[in-house]
């Protein structure tokens, strides 16, 4: 739901922000007026339309394939690939110039970039497979060597007399304004190809990312699947060079899926959300960069993506900080309530044992409850208050509480569960099931009826009297 609101209203959020920005900044830095704004937003301008559409489509592609990169835990290889593209651009330029062309033929440059980017991937894999160096070292080595090589090559090219190399360095930071119709078709074609591949290979890449060893035993060509994923990443990187630039394209690959992860626990949904967030970042980022001519598109896109990421991190419905805080608070409250019930029962039990009679529901002195746990007085008060509201406590004064009928049953149940768990941990000390709500989950459900029966017999249960405490019987008396 939140997501929907975000999508629908995002461009409208921008309107007042942009408006006020222009008021403050005047025209000294940014050329902005409402007419321009409308023109950009409505995609009336042909050039703007090309730029915005191609960055959006790029965002969709990088968002989808980036999800797998993230899940494969290879996020940084995207960075290695993009940096490894640079020497390819230089070499392609040199070759095309030598052949008598302008040297700035974009598909040629991008082909060069793809080839050297892919060589970079192969070198990373070779380093990993033949030495004891780990992934991160291999990627760092490839990234810096190829980038250094690329920078040196571009420098050499600009020194060559007659070769008009101006503009090649725009691949480093990106320059959306240079996109023409032909580029748009190229970008769209590759982006659609990669996006479709992410959905067609959903099953295969999921298996690869989750459990590559198991995938291999089923006969899946793990190495080829890995390569296909990296080829997809290389393609997205290459078509993003022009608009986002090689330094920041990694953000386009990692941030949308990372943000999407906060909204869902389902991979397919994550893929879709990530694509949408990527597309949205591209759209809004390119729009803003078109509005403020002095802002580089790559950087603006990353900033927009970051905003979306922060929003997702805070408000994501599945793993966002807010929802986790709420769950945690709820759990704390439940544990507090369990402790209150458990302690009340133990006090009633002591009273019954002391008077040598069966346990029954009676008034419980608050002071005795307070002794049993390291409760703050106010904490206990608020616990009692909420339990009254929930109907577990029938009435209370400053000195006494009296459990209701439901409360007494609940107290007995909680105590039994706690003790069974304790007994279980004593009997099977080495391992306990994690993630089990010991107070409330039915013990039988987790441990099985046999074990519970056995534990109960160990506790020498006399259900009419009291629930024995596994620690010792004297402890209950003291």
């Amino acid at each position: 739901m939140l997501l929907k609101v975000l999508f629908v209203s995002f461009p409208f959020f921008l309107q007042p922000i942009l408006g006020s920005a222009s008021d403050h900044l005047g025209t000294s830095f940014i050329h902005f007026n409402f007419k321009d704004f409308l023109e950009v937003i409505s995609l009336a301008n042909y050039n703007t339309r090309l730029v915005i559409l191609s960055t959006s489509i790029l965002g969709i592609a990088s968002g989808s394939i980036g999800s797998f990169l993230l899940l494969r835990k290879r996020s940084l290889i995207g960075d290695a690939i993009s940096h490894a593209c640079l020497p390819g651009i230089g070499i392609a330029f040199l070759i095309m110039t030598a052949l008598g062309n302008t040297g700035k033929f974009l598909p040629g440059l991008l082909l060069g970039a793809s080839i050297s980017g892919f060589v970079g991937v192969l070198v990373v894999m070779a380093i990993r497979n033949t030495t004891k160096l780990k992934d991160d070292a291999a990627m760092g080595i490839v990234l810096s060597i190829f980038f250094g090589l690329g920078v040196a090559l571009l420098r050499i090219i600009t020194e060559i007399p007659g070769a008009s190399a101006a503009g090649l360095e725009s691949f480093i930071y990106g320059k959306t304004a240079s996109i023409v119709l032909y580029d748009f078709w190229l970008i769209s074609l590759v982006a659609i190809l990669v996006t479709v591949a992410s959905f067609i290979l959903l099953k295969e890449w999921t298996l690869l990312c989750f459990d590559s060893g198991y995938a291999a035993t089923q006969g899946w060509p793990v190495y080829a699947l890995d390569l296909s994923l990296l080829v997809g990443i290389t393609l997205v990187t290459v078509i993003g060079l022009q608009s986002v630039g090689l330094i920041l394209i990694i953000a386009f690959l990692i941030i949308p899926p990372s943000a999407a992860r906060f909204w869902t626990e389902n991979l397919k949904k994550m893929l879709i959300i990530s694509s949408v967030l990527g597309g949205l970042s591209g759209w809004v980022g390119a729009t803003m960069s078109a509005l403020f001519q002095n802002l580089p598109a790559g950087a603006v896109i990353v900033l927009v993506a970051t905003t979306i990421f922060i929003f997702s991190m805070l408000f994501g419905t599945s793993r966002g900080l807010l929802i986790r805080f709420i769950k945690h608070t709820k759990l704390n409250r439940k544990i507090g309530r369990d402790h209150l019930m458990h302690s009340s029962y133990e006090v009633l039990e002591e009273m019954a044992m002391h008077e040598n009679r069966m346990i029954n529901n009676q008034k419980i002195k608050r002071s005795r409850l307070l002794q049993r746990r390291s409760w703050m007085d106010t904490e206990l008060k608020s616990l009692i208050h909420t339990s009254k509201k929930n109907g577990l406590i029938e009435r209370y004064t400053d000195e006494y509480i009296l459990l209701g009928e439901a409360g007494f049953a609940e107290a007995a149940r909680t105590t039994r569960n706690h003790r069974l768990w304790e007994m279980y941990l004593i009997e099977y000390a080495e391992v306990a099931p994690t993630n089990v709500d010991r107070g409330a989950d039915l013990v039988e459900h987790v441990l099985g009826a046999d074990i519970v029966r056995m534990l109960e017999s160990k506790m020498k249960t006399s259900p009419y009297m009291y629930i024995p405490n596994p620690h010792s019987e004297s402890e209950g008396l003291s």
Partner: protein
Amino acid sequence: MTAAVPAPLPKSKILNPQSAALHIQDLTVAYHSKPVLWDVDLSIPEAKLVGIVGPNGAGKSTLIKACLNLLPKTSGAVQVFGKSYEEQRSMIGYVPQRESVDWDFPVSALEVVAMGLYGKIGWFRSVKSRHKKLAKEALDRVGIADLADRQISQLSGGQQQRVFLARALAQDTRVYFMDEPFAAVDAATERAIIELLKEFKSLGKTCFVVHHDLATVSQYFDWTVLLNMRIVKSGPTEEVFTRENLSKTYGGKLTILEEASNALRITH
């Protein structure tokens, strides 16, 4: 003692490689020039529950990974029912160590189990409702059908292990290699696994199980492989699982020896 004592085997343990479920010859595996397994020879008949036992670092996981071609062999050959692993791959299932995957992965228990069917589903096709039904049945057989839609990080360790077993079950193969399925699981899971293993055996399937708990070896397995970089002994558990062989396997590791003697006292 378990009631199901296997039929006595011929004294000569060298089985015909054609009839052996698993036949390993001269297997040596090395990591970065440091050998982990030395000249392993093994021949294990069909329809056995085989416990692979040995101290830490003995190469137990390495042995099954080498059998599954997940690790390069320095030398030697592995045959499953008389043919190479590649030829027999479709009849071999694998249950990796639980720690080998990221349980924070955005999939549900059911989706993981359905992965067992990916091989049958084949390239590019999606998981259909009949596959989901099969996966659900497998989850039901390990007793956690009600957790099918939970994201896997919300499962306890034992439940995660059961998901892995359900995945192997769904794959429905003739031979299984399991890497420490009993490691760090709760008692209910342990029982679920052992029941499943017994069922596999009754169906004529063969399971190779890396196991670390000496106390339960004779209870769970009818065939035992004692391993410590080389094969110390392999054979029917009641013949092989002796104090003498254990001390050969575990060497001077006293605490473990003590544990072993306790285990023997309990089971014999």
